């Protein structure tokens, strides 16, 4: 019966697809995924996850992390049919697409899609840009267990630009970054308090660490004079800092499905939970490097994880970290003001001991070393992002401005 239903639907989809006016997607929400993650301390195998998948004509559905990428052109009507064969209720919330209440996917204001129920979600793609979809049932848990995916709305003329007549590119890459607490995935019944969330895996497009470096859909590959569009999305629960190689002259051209005119030139961009940005890279030279993605805590911006998106290299080797990430949070120190024009104060958990403060740049090269004092004058260093490391007390980021 299910096979017959999808066969009829696929025929209908083919018919509608011809019109270029209505895009139809079929999704199933399921709780039976399994995924491997590479991490610096070894692989994590067969981690359970929940998610969305596209049903096949054979009547089977495998879910993916993230879920199927939904794409349409500005002005299209988008119809998404969701069937829920799983035990728990699920929905789809189209984050940032400004849909009406009935299609908002929030159980208390819209509707639940209970076990073996189905629902149509319908909306008009009014603005080109980068969006997200996710389940909005017990969202704190369902989302982070894997129930999310990307939505990209292209300009109405299907041109190779981020927006109509703005943001032309030669190649584009979509990224969705999220951290997760593997204990939740392993045993969602016994999560306990949501407040005990302690992420230990940091993923981009469902991959982490070396699995990113060998994925041709994720490694940025460009030639001289290429303009590459990065579609960035944060669906995690903490801010994420993207550090772009300075020689790529990164331009921020849009956010949350709206243009930014004029573009903003920045080599560091913070994405808060739920935010999306469009960034252009201009390749004038061909050095291999990487985009660094720092995962931060919402409480105090502690660095909790880091991933790299390599550029023009499948042989990428993650820099040997001189940064101890939250080795012992209770022993950590604070740097203020931050950003700073040069003179900084260190708030230490105890009186200064006979130790050193080391200043590393983004390439992990030691730039300066000082005796450990509560006040430091770093005005001799150029503007940029640095890591302040105190042996035994971990490290903190410092943004130097001028």
């Amino acid at each position, binding site marked *: 019966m299910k096979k017959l239903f999808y066969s009829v639907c696929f025929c209908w989809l083919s018919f509608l697809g011809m019109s270029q006016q209505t895009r139809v997607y079929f999704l199933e929400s399921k709780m039976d995924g399994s995924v491997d993650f590479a991490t610096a301390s070894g692989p994590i195998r067969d981690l359970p996850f929940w998610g969305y998948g596209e049903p096949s004509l054979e009547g089977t559905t495998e879910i993916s992390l993230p879920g199927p990428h939904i794409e349409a052109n500005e002005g299209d009507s988008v119809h998404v049919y969701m069937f829920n064969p799983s035990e728990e209720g699920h929905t789809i919330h189209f984050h940032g697409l*400004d849909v009406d209440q009935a299609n908002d996917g929030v159980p208390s204001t819209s509707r639940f899609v209970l076990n073996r129920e189905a629902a149509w979600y319908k909306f008009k793609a009014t603005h080109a840009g980068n969006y997200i979809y996710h389940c909005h049932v017990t969202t704190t848990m369902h989302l982070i267990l894997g129930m999310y995916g990307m939505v990209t709305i292209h300009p109405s003329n299907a041109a190779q630009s981020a927006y109509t007549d703005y943001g032309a590119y030669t190649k584009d890459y979509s990224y969705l970054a999220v951290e997760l607490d593997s204990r939740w995935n392993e045993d969602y019944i016994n999560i306990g308090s949501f407040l005990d969330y302690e992420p230990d895996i940091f993923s981009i497009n469902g991959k982490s660490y070396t699995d990113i470096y060998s994925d041709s859909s994720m490694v940025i590959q460009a030639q001289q004079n290429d303009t590459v569009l990065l579609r960035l999305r944060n669906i995690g629960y903490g801010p994420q800092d993207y550090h772009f190689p300075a020689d790529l002259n990164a331009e921020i051209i849009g956010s949350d499905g709206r243009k930014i005119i004029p573009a903003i030139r920045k080599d560091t961009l913070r994405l808060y939970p739920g935010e999306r940005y469009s960034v252009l890279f201009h390749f004038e030279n061909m050095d291999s490097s990487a985009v660094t993605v720092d995962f931060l805590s*919402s409480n105090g911006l502690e660095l909790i994880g880091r991933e790299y998106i390599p550029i023009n290299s499948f042989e990428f080797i993650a820099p040997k970290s001189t940064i101890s990430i939250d080795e012992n949070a*209770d022993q950590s120190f604070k740097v203020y003001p931050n950003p700073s024009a040069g003179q900084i104060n260190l708030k230490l958990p105890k009186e200064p001991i006979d130790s050193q403060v080391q200043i590393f740049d983004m390439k992990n090269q030691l730039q300066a070393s000082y005796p450990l004092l509560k006040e430091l004058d770093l005005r001799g260093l150029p503007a940029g992002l640095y890591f302040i490391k105190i042996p035994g007390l971990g490290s903190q980021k410092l943004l130097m401005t001028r």
Partner: protein
Amino acid sequence: MKMSKVFSLSVFFTLIFFQNAIALETHLYLNNFQDTINQELVSRPIFNRTQVPEEETVHFHIEAGEKLILNIVNKLNKTVSLVIDGKVIGVLSSGNTNSFKLTIPEGIHYYGLGNELSALSAGAMIVVGSKRQKSFYLKFSECDPSYNEAIHNESALPKYRPEKFMVNDRDFNVNNHHTHTGIEAKVGDSVQIFLYNSSDFMHHAPHFHGFHVLIVKSDANKIYEGLWKDSFGMEPKSLYELLLVPDKEGVYPIHNHNLITTTSESNYPGGMMTHMRINP
């Protein structure tokens, strides 16, 4: 004396009179509100309009040039300092009425307590400037019972780990989820929304369902000003002015997209969440 000169002088003195007369005078009580967090009583200092401690504090919106006269009765058992935008304005001596006549520049400001009590989010916003058709004020705050207790007992401060997350000092929970409405407007209204992250430590990330909002002002993140956004970040002690022009009716959530904060005593939905109710 020519009539025109008499007229000019009278306008001058009238303006002087009104300039002195335009002031909002109000009484506030710095109370100790007994909150319940995870079945335990927690003391939260809070500015109320009444002597009886209430859960929700007071936002002010005055016209540019208008003075704000605050007569504050400190009902805490210790003397504390009053701050505006982090700067100490004066002392609130325990058990006394403390008066302040304030001339505050146009813009969005916050008031609260100084030093380590700043983290307890006792105050709210003072907006100086014109009101639009509809104006709403949303304060994002959280509470760590252990931190409150340490301040109360003047003992060593623990690592901050909040357990309760609130919009306008109330968490969204099973008892109030039908009535926790931060914004109510009609389709086509021009709605002014002021946001304040009162935390000393936490970055919050409000997300609007159903609509993009124009970020008119942001004191912390200038990159946002002039952008239409549905999600954005609020740094600790930061203030925002937004414009919302709803184009459809319905009920839509506003919540922090750090979804750990959208729980209340480990129940979802809860915490840092409220609703927009848009009428036809």
